[in-house]
């Protein structure tokens, strides 16, 4: 058994090529091992000190978030909050301050849980994952990356180094809303992200909605194209809710029945679109939406 602390990305990739598994915050890997889910890998390479993975970079054409950026950074980083607000919403809801201080975006994505909070926001923002080995770099669409609960199409030796999203017009907004039974230390029962771009007349130019924890992987709601040109009103929100509920294939478990999840995913989708549209119009909805409005809002 070995534990290596990588001091450069090349070091880390070399260790992965030799069969080591990466560890950043360890909030899934270590907790899972303690719970007896999977034993810790024989060889670990720590990537949490790699500054090159911990950067958020914005250009005219894209925003690039390093895989090592922590949830605590995501929820306050000005570029993330401005350009990818739904990711900030999601990061702010992850676990507890302790989890957010060490857990990373790359870890959340590569753990592949259908209940991951940052997954649906990344999908609606059109993100792709950058995967690197010692010798190659490739870009993978998220719907190709996530192949099942806890499963990804990443090959041994590949490291997720960044999530990259195209730049969006100023009239865009995004939001992530989650059903919560309590206000911290919570895990997604269902959640929904939405991104909205509005035309100059206030009608919808584009709309994407993705759902958390209602399918084996993060599920993007399809067939929303016909809503382009609509205004964001009760009728549109009801239609989004109905489609989200209809496309979800939730399970019954200790957290909720499938009947309840099906209904709630519609409520979450509706609220996500509502908040995203407000942000697209330039109205302030603080991060996270769950603390800005509704039952979970601050008193």
């Amino acid at each position, binding site marked *: 058994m070995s534990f290596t602390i990588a001091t450069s990305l090349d070091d880390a990739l070399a260790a992965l090529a030799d069969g080591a598994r990466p560890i950043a915050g360890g909030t899934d890997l270590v907790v899972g091992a303690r719970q007896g889910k999977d034993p810790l890998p024989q060889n670990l390479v720590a990537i949490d000190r790699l500054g090159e993975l911990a950067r958020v970079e914005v250009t005219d054409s894209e925003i690039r978030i390093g895989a090592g950026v922590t949830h605590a950074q995501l929820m306050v980083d000005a570029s993330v909050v401005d350009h990818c607000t739904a990711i900030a919403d999601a990061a702010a809801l992850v676990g507890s301050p302790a989890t957010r201080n060490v857990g990373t975006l790359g870890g959340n994505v590569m753990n592949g849980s259908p209940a991951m909070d940052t997954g649906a926001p990344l999908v609606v923002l059109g993100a792709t994952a950058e995967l690197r080995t010692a010798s190659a770099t490739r870009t993978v669409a998220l719907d190709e990356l996530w192949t099942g609960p806890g499963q990804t199409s990443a090959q041994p030796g590949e490291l997720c180094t960044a999530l990259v999203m195209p730049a969006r017009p100023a009239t865009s907004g995004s939001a992530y809303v989650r059903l919560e039974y309590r206000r911290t230390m919570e895990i997604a029962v269902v959640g929904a992200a939405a991104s909205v771009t509005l035309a100059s007349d206030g009608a919808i130019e584009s709309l994407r909605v993705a759902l958390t924890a209602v399918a084996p992987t993060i599920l993007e709601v399809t067939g929303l194209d016909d809503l382009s040109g609509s205004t964001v009103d009760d009728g549109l929100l009801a239609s989004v809710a109905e489609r989200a509920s209809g496309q979800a294939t939730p399970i019954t478990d200790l957290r909720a029945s499938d009947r*309840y999840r099906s209904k709630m995913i519609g409520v979450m989708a509706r609220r996500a679109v509502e908040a995203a549209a407000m942000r697209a119009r330039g109205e302030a909805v603080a991060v996270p939406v769950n603390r800005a409005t509704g039952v979970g809002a601050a008193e």
Partner: protein
Amino acid sequence: MTEAMVPAPSEDVPAFVRADGPDKVTGSGRYTADITLTGMLAAKFRYAGVSHARITRLDVEPARAIPGVFAVITADDVPDVEFSYGIADRRLFAKDVVRFEGEVLAAVAALTPELAQQAADAIIFEYDELQVVTDLEAALADSSPLVHDDLDAYTITGDTPHGGNVATHSSITVGDAGAARESADVVVSSRYVADASHAVPIEPRAVVAQWEGDKVTVYTSTQVPFDARNGVCETLELPASRVRVIVPHLGGGFGGKCGFHYEAHIAALSRAAGRPVKLVFSRWEEFVAPDRRREGMIIDVTTSMAADGTIVAREADILVDNGAYIADASFFAQAAAMHVAGPYRIPNVRIDSKLIYTNHQPSGSVRAPTAPQGCWASELHTDELAAAVGLDPLEFRRRNIVRTGDVGPSGQTYEEIGLEQCLELASTSAGWGRDLPDDEALGVGIGWWPSFGAPAGAYMKMHGDGSAQIITGANECGTGSVMTLRMLAADEIGIDPSAIELIYQDTAVAPVGPGASGSQTLFNHGRAVEGAARQIADQLRDLAADHLEANADDIVLADGKASVAGSPAIAVDISELAATAASGELLLGKGNAEIRDWPTLSGSSCLGEQGFSSFLAPQFFCHVSRVRVDRDTGVARVLEVHTAHDSGTILNPMAAHGQIEGGVMMGVGQALTEGTRHGDDARQLNPALLEYKLQTIADAPSIHTQFVEIFTPNAGPKGSKGLAEAPNVPTAASVGNAIAAVIGKPVRRLPMTAERVWEAVEGLDQPDSSTDATTYTGGAQ
């Protein structure tokens, strides 16, 4: 005690630094799991893992054969003793039959926890599965399988009716409730179902045992060191003189660490291994194994009223889930009956309450056993009554609650009580009747809880430098009341509390006492400490009288000095008197809490008397909660809780406020998110903190507390009563009534989870809605 230490009810809480506070906050304090002894081994248990089965083979030889394993013991290796309170229905280790998944088959001691676990897993356990009993109503059928084949084969204390799967049956009968219903204007029937829940102390329990010669010292995370010691003595057949129980700092208990748990298992294991042995529970074990968890209940209640809302009769049938063994639950049926009756004037009562054996984890005393569920049902029902006669819930209660001099539902006449004041203070504080957003409402809950007179002793000694020690059987499980013992003694002797050290949580040095159970620390240990301190005060007055050439009766002890009444200049330092005593007759005191009789009843007959039909020095309380409900999702959030408590005189306001805040939080958890779920195989489905959701500090409401400090006959020191359990009792009730006020109907399942609230909003089948109907038979609407 100076006036300053008993401020008028106020939210300005003066600071009182707990003696154990800095240790706990800085991490320098040591808990049982921190203990390491030379040569110490690790213990692991092999659990049944099946809810009901006949053992056909238990072969421990594969475990014994593993190198590094020092001992493996089973029922064959300890005396064949059946024990428990009331019904001696269990043994340390399962023999012949296992009755719940967490039953211990064997214990292993090995060099490391991992090795011990490997050995425990290597034990061969074969069994024939038996039909499980999981449903409280089905358990009563003649055709039901039995959890225990023949209860009368056990030693049973008292004459409580029992038989089949019924462990105990208690009733309250006053007047003729059936006849009163027939002639009543309005009758309302309701069904409420409460899930089981857990105490969930943050410290999972731990036990360390070490033998020296024929004596054993057991370090253990118990709330009740003498119960733990007595359990070891009883099951291992040892005299009390050979068993010493020491409790290091305790990381919470909430009743879950009352009683006797694994002290004897580990003592026996340590003896067999010839080495000290340490057991530390995992969170899973903490959920599944101990015979202390809060009981599930089914409550059917029917109340008959006059058209003006005057209650004329209450009838109820209550089923309480006992689980597989009685633990300390024999009084639960009667306690539940009292809480479903509630603190109301009810001239005709018929309540039947049964404690039912099932193949679930055994129920036991968790913070006010049966009361939060009983109060929740009774108080949600009360709001249904108010609605049925068109009265405001507060006004309805004003018309029906017990006041000083009234006769309660079991026939007890109450002396000076403060329920009425609690109702007015809490509701006024909450702004009852104010305008709120349409997704918010206020809900009210009232309730009661008794004090218990139990034997307790204390010693006290004063050193030559004027500092002093109290030696008490009290136990600190976070209530802070053992800290208050120093204030009581200081007040008698006239010195500063900080000059008094507390020696506690050690059965070898302290006199017997009930420990931290039943809100009794102050009520019983406090009276004993007062007695011991008074003896020292008497000695100091005699010394001072000699010194000052005055009459001992005229000596006043205060501010570190003994002075002559009316002539404060004629004084001597208490430390000087202590120095004099140190070279002569030493300053030693002892005290006993006198046993208090229960109040007598009139006009009622009660089956299955278990000491709960009348309440000694009862505590009364009212909580009003402001709750916001998301109608689309059913998520409810408690925003404010306004509490008012009649717990008599409040001696230590900071500790008292802490109790209220902790009790409210535990109550909010029980109201909204904390519920144990069982599979068809009777095993727990959510024995982990991910799926059994506690409330967090982020969920905490603002809590506003007022104390009704009135004179209470037969109360504890300086007119005080208990407070540790009371604030847990009415919280779920007040939250439930607020939710009902928002959504227009009660949620009939506890916890009132988001999904259950949503089901109620949507008018979907709530479980048990077949008896959901509220029947109005005339009268005002």
